[in-house]
C-alpha cells in the first residue's frame, strides 16, 4: 500500500505555486511598455504565457506525484476510458 500524501501538507508545493502566482501578473515590468517580440505579441505577454505554462506543469506534477489519499482498489481502472 502506498503512503498517504496530501498536497495541503506539503509546504514546498505551496512555496512554488505562490511564487508562480505572484509572477503571473506583470507588476515587475515597466508600465505601458509593449515592444512586440514574436508574431507581434508584446514581450510581456510571452512572459505571462510562460509563467502560466509553468503553473500548468507544476499542477500536473503535483496531481500525479504528490496526491494519494484514498486506499482504493485501482486494478479495474484500466478499463475506465469508456
Amino acid at each position, binding site marked *: 500500500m502506498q503512503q498517504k500524501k496530501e498536497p495541503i501538507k506539503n509546504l514546498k508545493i505551496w512555496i512554488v505555486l505562490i511564487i508562480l502566482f505572484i509572477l503571473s501578473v506583470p507588476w515587475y515590468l515597466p508600465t505601458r511598455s509593449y515592444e512586440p517580440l514574436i508574431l507581434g*505579441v508584446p514581450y510581456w505577454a510571452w512572459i505571462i504565457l510562460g509563467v502560466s505554462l509553468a503553473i500548468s506543469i507544476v499542477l500536473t506534477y503535483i496531481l500525479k506525484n504528490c496526491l494519494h489519499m484514498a486506499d482504493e482498489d485501482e486494478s479495474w481502472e484500466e478499463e475506465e476510458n469508456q
Partner: protein
Amino acid sequence: MNNLAFSGASGIIIMFFYGFLMLFIGFITYWRNKGLHQSNKEFYLGGGNLSVFVLFFTFFATQYSGNTIVGYAPTAYRMGFFWMQSITFFILIVMGYLLFAPRLYVLSKKFQFITPSDYIQKRFQSKGVTLLASILMLYGLCNFMLEQIIAIGHGVSGLTGGTIPYQAAVVFFVSVMVIYGWLGGMRSVAYTDTMQGIALLVGVVILLIGSMIYFGGLPSAVDYAATVSPEKLGVPDSKGLVSWFSMLILVTIGAAIYPHAIQRIFAAKSEKSLKKSLSWMAWMPFVTSGFVFLVGIIGIQAFPGLSKGESEQLVGMMANHLAMQNSFFYWAMVILFGGIVAAIISTADSVLLTLSSIISKDIYSTHINKNADEQKQILVGKIVGVAFVVILLLIAWYPPATLYRIFILKFELLIQIAPAFILGLYWRRLHRHAVLIGMLAGTILASVMVFAGLQPLGIASGLWGLAVNFALCIVMSFVINVPKQEVELLGKEVS
C-alpha cells in the same frame, strides 16, 4: 445585416438539430438507467461512478460556459492583452481544488455526501450554518443560471443575425435542457457535457484558424491596435495590476468552490479519475480561453471601433463572415455555433441539477418533510428547479447590456462558503458559531459593497467580504471556548 450565412432556414435547422441531439442523449440515458429516479446518489451524482473521460468533460463544461466565448472575446477586444488573465485564472482554478478537493473526496465517499451542504452539516452539526450556506448557494446558482439563460439568447440571436429572436432561442433551449436533465439527472448531464465539450473545442480551434486566414493574422491585428489603441498592448498600470490580482484570487477560490464543481468531486469514480481529469483541466485554458482571447484581439482589426454594446456581438459577426467564405468554413461555423450553444447549456444544466439537489436534500427533506422517501425528494427538487427556471426566464426576457458585470456578481456570494471548506477540513478548532457569523458578515459586507459600487483599492468587493469572513472565523474560534469533547468529535469526523 441581410447576407448572414445563418440567417433564414439554415439557422433554424441547425438549432433544431442540436436541440434534438441533446434530447436524444437524454432519452437514451433514461432508457438505459431506469432506476435512477429512486436514489439521490443515482440521480444527482450518477451513482458516484463517473469515469475519467466523462468526469473531465463535465468539469470542463462546468468551468467553461458559452460566456467563455461569447463574452470573453469581446472583453479581449475592449481590454486588449490585459485579458490574458483569463488564461491564468482558469489554470489557477485547479490550484483552488488542491486546497480542499483531495480530503473532501475521501470524506464524500465515506459519508455518502450528495450536496456541499451534506459536508457542512456533518462538519459543523449546525442547522443554522447549513441553512445559511444552502441559501447562499441557491442564490448564487440562480444568478449563474440567469447569466447562462441570457447568454443562450445573445449567442443564438447573434450567430443567426437576429433570424432567431433572443426570446425564441431562450425558450427552446431551456426547454430542451430541462427535459433531458429531468430524464437522466447527472448521467444525461455528464454525457451531453461530453458531446457539448467536443463541439466547443472543435469550434474554437476552427474559429481561430479562420480568423487568422480571413481577417489577417495576429501580427497585423497587433500592429493595427498599436496605432489606434496602444493602451490595449501595454503593461497595465498599478490600478489594472491590482484588479488583475484580485480577479485571479476571486476566480481561483470562487470557481473551485462552485457548488456544482464540488458535486463533481463527489461524483468521481475514484481518486485516480479525479486526479487525471483535474490535471487535464490544468491544460485546457490554453486552447479555450487562450484561443478566444486571440480571436478577440484579431477582432480589433477586423471590426474596428465597435461600441461596448456592439462588441458583445463580435463572435457572431466573425463567425458569419467566415461562414460566407466557403463550404468548409460554413460547416465549421455550424459546429462552432452548436458548440457555443452547447457550452452554455452544459453549464446551465449542471447548475440546474445542483440547484434541484439542494432543494431536495438541504431544504425539502431537512426542513419541510423529513419522512419523504428519496423518490419524492427528487421529484420535489425537479419541480421546484423548473419553477426557478421559469422565474429566471421572466427576468431574462429583456437582456441587460453586457455579460461581464453579472458574471462578477455571483462570485461575491458563492465564495463566502469557502472558509467552511478550506479551514473547516483541516482546522479542528474552527467553531460553528464562528463560521456562521463569518459567513453572514462576509455576505452582508460583499452585498452592500456591490450595491454601493465600492471596490476600495480596486479589489473586488467579494474579496473584502471573504477577508472579513476568514478573519472572523479565525479570531472567533480562538475566543469561543469549545468543550474538549466537541473538538475531538469534530476532529474524528473530518480527518
